């Protein structure tokens, strides 16, 4: 087996893993778009906000301490305790639910019936507002995310997976690098997708959510509360953002550039469609593998490298030309 083929295989596997991470971000977009027709520009910032809140709670940081200290002349920074990761995750989920309620109550409730572009612009405003609130609440410094679910055990693993390294070395004479964190992200993403599908298929709220996604007016006519469904869907998107924030934050520390991971989700959405959960996953995998293989085979050797960012969009555009609604998106037919 040629050396280049073995390398390409390693790159493909890593592309699949990267694709899962992209899909994690894309899922949040899909949930909100499917239920409300809103393209949520703030999804990346929600991931940042969720991760910052999680670390802040775990470290016992006083929220808005800079503001409090500036106003009252105090010197508060930390409560002096550490919160266990599981409890901190639960509390962060509560914060994201509260955020969802606030978004619905104070923003989108007043915009019902407005054009999609107005709703989109509102999410842009929301993104910048949330970024500022996150900064005020938790500060701008880079925070280390070290999650251990059960005391000292059950920590998020990072680094090369020894088993895959050893097995592939035996098979190919070259040990593949697969990051344990990426494997964890893949398992978490799989569980998340199964849970979301089960929720939407087998629970009353899930069925209501699907009804709203299919037809707002019809759903309203049978007594489904649109306000409740929107809070629910924003809460779910907040939870997905938290998961994405944990996985990406574990790689790089929790910092403001986390909000830019949304840029990685856009080609995934273009390719997979804005309304399909499986589409987000498959789109993520195609983008992940496509950009990594292109960089390996053409970008790095012939184009000077750093082709991944733009190639992902080229790949998505090619798919768009042939299937404008994306691979799994619903075809929109408007009859005159």
């Amino acid at each position, binding site marked *: 087996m040629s050396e280049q083929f073995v390398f390409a295989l390693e790159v493909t596997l*890593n592309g699949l893993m990267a694709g899962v991470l992209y899909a994690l971000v894309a899922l949040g977009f899909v949930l909100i778009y499917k239920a409300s027709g809103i393209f949520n520009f703030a999804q990346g910032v929600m991931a940042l906000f969720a991760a910052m809140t999680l670390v802040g709670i775990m470290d016992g940081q006083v929220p808005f301490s800079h503001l409090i200290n500036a106003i009252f002349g105090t010197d508060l920074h930390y409560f002096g305790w550490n919160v266990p990761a599981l409890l901190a995750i639960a509390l962060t989920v509560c914060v994201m639910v509260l955020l969802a309620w606030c978004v619905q109550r104070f923003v989108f409730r007043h915009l019902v019936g407005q054009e999609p572009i107005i709703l989109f612009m509102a999410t842009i405003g929301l993104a910048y507002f949330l970024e500022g609130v996150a900064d005020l609440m938790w500060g*701008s410094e*880079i925070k280390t995310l070290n999650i251990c679910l059960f005391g000292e055990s059950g920590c998020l693993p990072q680094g090369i997976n020894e088993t895959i390294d050893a097995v592939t070395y035996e098979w190919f004479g070259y040990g593949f690098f697969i990051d344990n964190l990426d494997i964890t992200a893949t398992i978490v993403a799989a569980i998340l997708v199964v849970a979301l599908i089960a929720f939407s298929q087998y629970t009353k709220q899930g069925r209501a959510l699907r009804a709203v996604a299919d037809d707002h007016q019809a759903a309203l006519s049978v007594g489904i509360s649109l306000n409740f469904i929107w809070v629910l869907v924003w809460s779910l998107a907040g939870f997905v953002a938290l998961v994405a924030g944990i996985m990406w934050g574990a*790689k790089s520390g929790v*910092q*403001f550039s986390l909000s830019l991971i949304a840029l990685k989700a856009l080609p995934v959405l273009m390719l997979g469609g804005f309304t399909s959960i499986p589409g987000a996953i498959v789109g993520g995998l195609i983008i992940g593998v496509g950009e990594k293989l292109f960089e*390996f085979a053409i970008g790095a050797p012939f184009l000077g*490298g750093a082709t991944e960012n733009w190639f992902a969009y080229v790949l998505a555009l090619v798919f768009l030309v042939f299937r404008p609604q994306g691979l799994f998106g619903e075809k929109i037919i408007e009859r005159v």
Partner: protein
Amino acid sequence: MKMKLTTLALGAALAAGPALADLTFPDLSYRTGAYAAGGIPFSDGYSDYFTLLNERDGGIGGVKTRVIECETAYNTEKGVECYEATKGENPLVYQPLSTGITYQLIPKVSADGIPMHTMGYGRTSAANGDTFKWVFNYPANYWNGASGAINHILDINDDDISGKKIALVYHNSAFGKEPIRTLEELAKKHGFELSLLPVDHPGQEQKSQWLQIRRDRPDYVIMYGWGVMNQVAIQEAANIRFPMENFIGIWWSGAEIDVLPAGDKANGYKALSLTAVGDDFPVYDDLRKYVLETGKAAGNGDQLGTVPYNRGLYAAMLAAEAAKTAQEIHGTPDINAAMMRDGMEALELTEEKMEALGMAGFGPTFSVSCRNHGGPGLVGVTQWDASAKQWNLISEFAPTDMDVIQPLIDADSAAYAAENNLESRCE
């Protein structure tokens, strides 16, 4: 004696004259956005030093200083807007803290007659003061950094690195691309094999680059990174078990925030430095007494002694010393931008001066001249101790290979001079 007379004259002028305007130092800061974690401590250090001068010394030469911040978010367009918005405030010197903004501002400051100091960043060939009258990049530039990294690798290989493989992982921007030319020349000179690995902004995803490093197995990796790119690169290097002692970052890739997320795995990582590390300097006693404890600090005080804070502090000290020099040259405490430029060009930092400032050994001693706006190009090497969570300076501030760098500076600045019809102005 001459110094004392000048000080006396300045004092007399101050006592006799009308109220003087503040000495204004704009800070094109970035406290928001993807690069805020590095921008905030730098600006805090910059601002705190001027606050210290105001509180302890009554300003510079008896005139209070004023720092006006303008938020750029490390965005070139916003940086230019900030320049346009603040240039009417009688600024003495600009510190853009961004190579992209620097490139856009060079023609503007040259036309407006306002000096710009780009310490350890910006357009490297601005070191040629004969061409770049209004731009200064002392005490060292990116090409000194590239040479400093290679010198360090030479040191630990008994001066023979022929046949070695060295990879440059760089931010795919004007900043990251600066050292390529120098490294290519150094590769020819020393016979090492250079490979280039660009990383797109912001650098959150670098799997491809580190898989390539794992395949190609370079002996050393040099990094020109900034922001999240640094943390991800160090984490990825640890993941593929690249030996940290063979991983060397430029001074913008060597702060505490860059290595802490990787934990113990970052132990041994090296970074170049323009300044000493830590807060074991008398100036810090004054900072705590006059700035922090009086509640006048720009931040909450938890950044004191960190690498980016020290760098901001050092940049402010260099600006303040140049302002003092300008006051002495022109015999007035009330200086303008043109006088400040003269002060920067005549700046001389001696050991005695650094000692008096409470910053002995904080940075190299050097002098600036009409031809040399880049300083001596001395570079130190620091290494991260993960257990102590601190950087240690493991080398002297050593000279870099000016035999390679100077012709590159001359060639690049000559091209700029030809494009802009600039005459030689230095004797």
